[in-house]
């Protein structure tokens, strides 16, 4: 990417990025310098990729016409802490309209792969068509620009994401990072929620299974369809000199109030997302047995307070990040020291692969998280879909599904997960929407627009349907009810149309949402790091425009108003155990909310 803002404060044309388009069937490679057309393209991430996807009408995610776009944000690979994000964008096999058309998605992952991609000289990789056999793409920084090489990848087939990365590290021991799919991605026809695993510095040094993930929306399945098993980005580090202003911003990100919740308690923090158990559990807000808290004390057994004495927990981080949000769980040795690495305990996988499946044993939870990682699946989608299966089996004991697993049945749940990742259970692997529709039992299928819900109750988040790329990653309304307890339609309409949508900002910039960077600080980071003179208001307007484009693209792919709704049990079977004033999202409430939200968004969508 070249930036030359000398004469113009923020003219998009002053930013030229390098696009590498690969036609997989012919292996034709086209490298080109592309001037930006607008500020969305300048900021990058889905702001760029959605403009490419929006120009196409795709009828099936698994068609040659559906590109897989791998790109970065303007701050990826920069001195700005957490400027590490890589974005994978495509029409998703999972997100689907009632008309059967796929919706556009992106998914983001951290650590150093994105930096290495930028440092090869490629800002954007577009994979067109489908390779005839399993292939690996090797991008390098050459003396005259990026180079591209194709290598057979048959030897990697069947290996876990981690084992693939370890194998690749032997072949590319210097200056390389890797993006891979696991067995689930190889079995893309039977698993629509495969993730892309990104290698990490910690993983390459320790040999532990510590990938980062672009998990949501089945971007690993699209990569599997394309027969691309791995992407190697090999280039020397090119981190720029740290400017004093950026040093101050980084210090604020690492030590300010925004990241406190992710830091360790002895570092002035709350202990990571896992600590949600401490505040949700007393109010019965933890998803349990398919998003239906029971008011008992079982969820507490997976809290950090209970788990910590049994294990050795070490807070670790992505490349150059000072927040240390990774709560890595190791066996404890007889002397109390660090033993074998077990799993990374984040709130989402812990809840959706244990408590929400009726499993309350941290050893079992660690095993399931590790298994999902090895197979390369999105823990949210697989966990939520299997919770539905268990719920179905409880409700229909006379005709149970698959192996008849029930809540708490660890061995059978493990078998379901293994079978899903290996392609033996395509009805699970194609997601809860399709499964529940086939069974004619959709009311407790926890999904919106085909994407499984993350670990926040839909009873407390009527904003879910307006997320454009997964429940909590693209609409920040999931925590409002616990925090403010407001049950008015006006409050929620404002929350969705004026605040929640700005959650997508960092999926353009290339930074992690855990910095909780204020809009002003983000604008300052852009100015000092890359010379982009953008006001806070201009930044917010650009992010809003990109979000509205996402809604417009959903409409283009056939999503209708009636599809912007919640699982119907939220309306029809309110959970009396719910804390904080009890259930409030009735059909009448949601209908009034929907009217207000669309009265705002419709006008903006019409401009596209």
């Amino acid at each position, binding site marked *: 990417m070249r930036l030359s803002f000398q004469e113009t404060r923020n003219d998009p044309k002053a930013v030229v990025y390098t696009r590498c388009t690969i036609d997989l069937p012919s292996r034709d490679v086209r490298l080109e310098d592309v001037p930006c057309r607008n500020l969305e393209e300048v900021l990058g991430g889905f702001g760029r990729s959605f403009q490419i996807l929006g120009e196409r009408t795709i009828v099936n995610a698994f068609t040659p016409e559906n590109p897989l776009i791998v790109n970065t944000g303007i701050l990826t690979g920069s001195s700005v802490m957490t400027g590490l994000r890589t974005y994978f964008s495509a029409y998703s096999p999972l997100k689907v309209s009632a008309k059967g058309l796929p919706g556009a998605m992106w998914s983001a992952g951290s650590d150093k792969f994105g930096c290495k991609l930028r440092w090869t000289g490629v800002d954007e990789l577009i994979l067109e068509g489908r390779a005839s056999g399993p292939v690996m793409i090797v991008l390098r920084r050459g003396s005259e620009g990026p180079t591209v090489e194709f290598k057979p990848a048959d030897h990697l087939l069947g290996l876990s994401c981690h084992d693939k990365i370890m194998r690749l590290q032997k072949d590319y021991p210097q200056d390389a990072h890797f993006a891979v799919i696991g067995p689930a991605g190889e079995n893309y026809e039977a698993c629509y929620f495969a993730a892309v695993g990104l290698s990490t510095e910690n993983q390459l040094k320790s040999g532990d299974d510590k990938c980062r993930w672009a998990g949501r929306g089945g971007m690993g399945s699209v990569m599997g369809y394309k027969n691309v098993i791995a992407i190697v980005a090999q280039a020397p580090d090119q981190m720029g000199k740290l400017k004093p202003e950026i040093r101050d911003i980084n210090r604020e990100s690492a030590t300010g*109030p925004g990241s406190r*919740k992710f830091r360790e*308690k002895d570092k*002035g923090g709350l202990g990571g997302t896992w600590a949600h158990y401490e505040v949700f559990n007393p109010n019965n807000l933890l998803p349990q047995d398919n998003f239906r808290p029971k008011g008992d004390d079982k969820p507490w057994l997976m809290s950090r307070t209970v788990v910590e004495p049994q294990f050795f927990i070490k807070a670790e981080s992505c490349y150059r990040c000072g927040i240390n949000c990774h709560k890595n769980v190791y066996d404890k040795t007889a002397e109390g020291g660090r033993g074998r690495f077990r799993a990374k305990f984040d709130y989402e996988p812990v809840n959706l692969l244990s408590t929400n499946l009726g499993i309350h044993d941290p050893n079992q939870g660690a095993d399931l998280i590790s298994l999902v990682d090895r197979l390369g699946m999105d823990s949210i989608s697989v966990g939520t879909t299997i919770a539905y299966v268990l719920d179905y089996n409880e409700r229909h004991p006379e005709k149970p599904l698959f192996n008849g697993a029930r809540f708490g049945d660890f061995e059978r749940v493990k078998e379901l997960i293994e079978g899903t990742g290996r392609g033996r259970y395509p009805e699970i692997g194609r997601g809860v929407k399709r499964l529940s529709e086939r069974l004619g039992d959709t009311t407790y299928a926890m999904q919106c627009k085909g994407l499984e819900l993350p*670990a926040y109750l839909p009873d407390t988040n009527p904003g879910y349907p307006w997320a454009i790329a997964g429940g909590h990653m693209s609409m920040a309304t*999931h925590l409002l009810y*616990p925090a403010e307890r407001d049950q008015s339609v006006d409050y929620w309409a404002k929350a969705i149309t004026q*605040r929640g949508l700005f959650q997508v900002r960092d999926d353009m910039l290339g930074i992690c949402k855990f910095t*909780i960077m204020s809009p002003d600080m983000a604008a300052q980071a852009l100015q000092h790091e890359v010379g982009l003179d953008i006001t*806070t208001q201009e930044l917010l307007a650009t992010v809003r425009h990109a979000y509205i484009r996402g809604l417009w693209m959903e409409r283009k792919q056939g999503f209708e108003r009636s599809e912007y709704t919640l699982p119907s049990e939220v309306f029809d079977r309110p959970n009396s155990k719910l804390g904080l004033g009890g259930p409030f999202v009735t059909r009448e409430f949601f209908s009034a909310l929907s009217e207000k939200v669309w009265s705002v968004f419709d006008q903006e969508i019409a401009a596209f």
Partner: protein
Amino acid sequence: MVRIRFTTFLGERIGGISSVEVSATTVGSALRALTDRYPELARLVWTGEDVINPMMAVFLNDQLVEAGQLGTAVKAGDEIDLLAAVSGGVA
């Protein structure tokens, strides 16, 4: 004066500011001064008379202040951080 810092979650409700300075003798009175100045934040900070919202976390100079410790004394130059105790979403 005591400085209270907060995240965008609170700041966006009061014009995007990220910190304020208040005159106070305890953590509780500092928070009360904040919400007196910005009533928009009251529902986020309090769930009742002098009862802190359990979904919020308060730190005094890097030390977590529990709900029952709002009477902790503060002095000029102290820094209070106020944030939502829950958040999520990372890859």
